């Protein structure tokens, strides 16, 4: 039973690395592929679940194959294509390729070969075998909404925090976090980060008990502050990396572009001072939007600065994703969010599967009858009149309780 989680050492020893790709470039390829999946998914009106599932497939795929062997944008298309089918939001392969052609520079699209569809189809089988047909992937979104329901405090602030955490979750797809930690833990960490940045301190929560030091003790075990900080910084580091504007415009490996945030800024932010971090981030965001303008060439479709993955109709929180920059934090303007937070948001997303998560583990399912009844089979003669007297009373008396109370 392969686990889908890897430690940092394993993440540094991937097939790409073994084939000579340096770690930084691999991380950039991962980020570009993820961004490309998000951009393509967005252009095709695919929901956040489908997109996120596609990205997780992508990251898993490159734990077993190299970027040198499988060009990243073909793989990215293939992952999105498969995720679309798995999440019941299928898109035609040729339509995905059409979007890819529009989004990618010609030399990138050339990696699709002379028959792009065939290329994706062939790869799909490789992908399925690589990911062990483990199609069902959970994402932090669901947990984010679930946990948020339990937090008490200023509604507006809470909502702002949730919205910000949501964007961090979107952006975390560009990191390898989904290969390191379960979605529950990522959700907790990014809510913690958003809480810090939006100055929302959780002091009370529903279901609190004396054993809980922090609200997340209710949901996850053995999560240290160090771990949370580490996860947060993996996301924050995205914003201080050289701008990768669009998948088509990435610099060749090794070519360094002016960093949006200086290394010193970055190390300051490591102290996890909320204010410093947000400053770093906003400078990154300024830098990225400037460089974006200068880079647009007529052949490429410029990606939106703020990438929005449309929410399903039943997610009550308005949100935006800023893949390059953390959300702007303005404390001055009160933002009004329609539904109060303690209205339980429907946690069942657009994918039909998440509801299953609330079901008891199948193993805990007791059979209706534990003991075989003490009767031996009787083979009736043909047309025998079967036993039976009187009509059923129509109410239940005999059945043992199905679930333990």
């Amino acid at each position, binding site marked *: 039973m392969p686990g889908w989680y890897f430690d940092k050492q394993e993440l540094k020893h991937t097939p790409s690395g073994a084939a000579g790709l340096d770690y930084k470039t691999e991380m950039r390829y991962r980020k570009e592929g993820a961004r490309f999946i998000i951009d393509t998914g967005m252009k095709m009106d695919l929901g956040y679940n489908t997109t996120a599932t596609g990205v997780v497939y992508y990251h898993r795929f490159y734990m*077993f194959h190299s*970027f*040198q*062997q499988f060009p*990243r944008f073909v793989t990215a298309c293939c992952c999105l*294509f*498969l995720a679309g*089918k798995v999440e*019941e939001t*299928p898109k035609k392969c040729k339509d995905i390729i059409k979007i890819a052609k529009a989004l990618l520079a010609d*030399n990138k*699209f*050339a*990696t699709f*070969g*002379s028959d792009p569809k065939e290329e*994706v*189809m*062939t790869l*799909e*089988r490789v992908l*399925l*075998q*690589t*990911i062990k*047909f*483990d*199609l*069902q992937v959970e994402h932090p979104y669901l947990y984010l909404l679930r946990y948020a329901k339990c937090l008490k405090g200023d509604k507006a602030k809470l909502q702002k925090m949730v919205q910000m955490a949501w964007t961090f979750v979107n952006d975390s797809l560009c990191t390898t976090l989904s290969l390191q930690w379960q979605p529950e833990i990522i959700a907790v960490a990014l809510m913690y980060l958003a809480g810090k940045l939006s100055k929302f301190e959780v002091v009370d929560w529903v279901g609190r008990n004396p054993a809980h030091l922090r609200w997340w003790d209710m949901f996850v075990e053995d999560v240290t502050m160090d771990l949370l900080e580490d996860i947060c910084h993996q996301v924050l580091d995205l914003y201080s990396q050289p701008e990768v504007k669009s998948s088509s415009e990435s610099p060749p490996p090794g070519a360094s572009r002016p960093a949006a945030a200086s290394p010193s800024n970055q190390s300051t932010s490591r102290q996890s001072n909320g204010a410093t971090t947000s400053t770093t981030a906003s400078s990154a965001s300024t830098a990225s939007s400037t460089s974006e303008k200068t880079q647009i060439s007529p052949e490429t479709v410029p990606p939106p600065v703020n990438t929005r993955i449309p929410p399903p*109709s*039943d997610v009550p929180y308005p949100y935006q994703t800023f893949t390059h920059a953390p959300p702007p934090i303005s404390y001055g303007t009160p933002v009004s969010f329609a539904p109060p937070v303690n209205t339980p948001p*429907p946690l*069942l997303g657009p994918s*039909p599967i998440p*509801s*299953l998560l609330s*079901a008891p583990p*199948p193993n805990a*399912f007791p*059979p*209706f*009858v534990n003991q075989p*009844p003490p*009767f*031996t*089979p*009787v*083979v009736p003669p043909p047309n025998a009149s*079967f*036993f*039976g*007297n*009187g*009509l*059923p009373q*129509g109410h*239940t*008396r005999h*059945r043992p309780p*199905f679930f333990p109370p």
Partner: protein
Amino acid sequence: MQNNHHSGHPNSTAMNMREKEKYIENFNFPFCEEASKYQKVAKIGQGTFGEVFKARDINNPKKYVAMKKVLMDNEKEGFPITALREIRILQLLKHDNVVNLIEICRTKASAANRYRSTFYLVFDFCEHDLAGLLSNVNVKFSLGEIKKVLQQLLNGLFYIHYNKILHRDMKAANVLITKLGVLKLADFGLARAFSTNKNGMPNRFTNRVVTLWYRPPELLLGERNYGPPVDLWGAGCIMAEMWTRSPIMQGNSEQQQLTLISQLCGSINPQSWPGVEHLELYKKMELPQEQKRKVKERLKPYMKDPYAIDLLDKLLVLDPSKRADADTALNHDFFWTDPMPCELGKMLANHSQSMFEFLAPARRATQINRHHAIPRPTTSAVQDSGYQDRVF
């Protein structure tokens, strides 16, 4: 880096392709074993999606499996979404009364298959399917055994519905029974997840599901916002079949199926089924009126047990909202009065041959004609029409 080459150089692309083919051929996928670890013994089924084989584990010769081939020949959109659904759902459902998916195997990619692996779903082998058992006159179920079959069937349905899965292809051939008498719901090729729509948005599922003879009236009338009751209609049809030994309503068109249903369950109209008038096909289909409900009367010659008849009467209810759900059915006195449900193992031990519908193709038509109480089926290729009807 290969991906730095420019377009317009077919040679480099072709080279890349050949290299890739070799790579795929030689890559030893750690999580997807080769189908050659199993040795085919016999073909036991032919479905819409491909063949099913009985096979033996070469490393563990006592272990038998069923291998269902994923048919991909005519797929324009790659790995079929239906197979993906089936896999995902089977991976999720782990229950004694649901067939167990062991793994997915592949054939090695090679020049011979144009570097396209074939995939197999590998299941624990079950010796019989219910259609095969019912078609064999030598297999006789006692009342207690029938109860055991139906109790396990409903138990499986309760479990999958609890997990928000609709089976959508209930029929005797998709109900497997092991030689020890454990029933397993199988064939999740049409299954899908459903959610109880809290957001007020009705579901828009396809209603072209369920083999015609087991298809409930709401689907025949075009309902798209349906739920678990569709499977309970099928359970009702299977229940009656335990005694009649043949499907009870063998229509050869959707119209005829509705006619047969009306003749058995009474006229379909807003009195018997409030709201039916809003269904898409209500006005388009011919619905015989003035039909009395005859479920009890027509099935009594077969089902002598009054509890059985009463339960059937609660399953074959036109209005899906009034149809018994799995929990209610399991609570019915039928399962809690003597003779209590009893194990099938002993009875099945008398039969050393596997019984599958596929291996007994001539069943149904011959038997059913003797039963005057059941409408005569049109025999020509009826069974096939049930298959062709399915649209994805």
